[in-house]
């Protein structure tokens, strides 16, 4: 069961959703683990997706959150506040990721090295 945060645009009378799913899979990016008998190839993580696109029509990338230190801006910084501290709990992680989808962010925001991401398109 995933949870979906619904965002309603009063100006456009439309809704979008940001979905957080907790999954367990073998990640292709973990291929080095296959040669390491002491490591588990299975990973458990949050998979974050958004309905709709960025305001420039570009689809949002799927985001993986494997730890509370996987911050939304290039894994380096939180979005709502300029800090590199890990999220204090799952609730604050969900809120910060949702905020970032709604508002987008400039390239290298807060010195995170992130690339530009447009805000959620409602119209």
């Amino acid at each position: 069961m995933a949870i979906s945060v619904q965002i309603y645009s009063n100006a456009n009378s439309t809704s979008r959703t940001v979905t957080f799913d907790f999954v367990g899979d073998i990640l292709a990016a973990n291929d080095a683990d296959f040669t390491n008998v002491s490591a588990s190839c299975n990973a458990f993580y949050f998979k974050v997706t958004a309905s709709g696109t960025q305001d420039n029509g570009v689809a949002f990338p799927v985001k993986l959150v494997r730890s509370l230190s996987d911050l939304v801006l290039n894994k380096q910084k939180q979005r709502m506040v300029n800090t590199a501290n890990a999220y204090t709990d799952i609730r604050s992680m969900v809120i910060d990721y949702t905020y970032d989808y709604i508002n987008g962010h400039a390239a290298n925001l807060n010195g995170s090295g992130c690339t530009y991401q447009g805000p959620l398109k409602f119209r």
Partner: protein
Amino acid sequence: MPNVRVYNETDNRIYTVTMDIFTSVLDKVHGLSSDGANGAVDFYMRVSTTMRRSSDNSALPEFIIRDLTDVPPGYATALNFTELFDDYVEYYVDQAELGQSTSSSSATSSSSSMGYSISSMSSWSSESSSSLDSSSSSSSS
């Protein structure tokens, strides 16, 4: 919703450990104000198992997880969600005493010392859910 299936050789049963994300109002538990500006909606995970204690067949507890310090009793803070889930699987297997044979003869064999195996993992599909449900109901009967 990931499920880890734990196969126990001793009783030839498959048990599951499930961890999933939920959202609800938990202000009385979490200490949030029900009418505060930040709202009282919480996002958290719940982990549970179909395993039962071998000593008295009682159910093992369900845990609420809000951060990586919400680990099983006696465990250190997890580095990530994979480690956290692995810790809970280990905790449940230990509490259920899976793989611990009462037979002295089997206890000396190499296979009985590792009498359980985490056999597979599945997520989401209704097909796997239904099969897990059936396995859990059979295991609890």
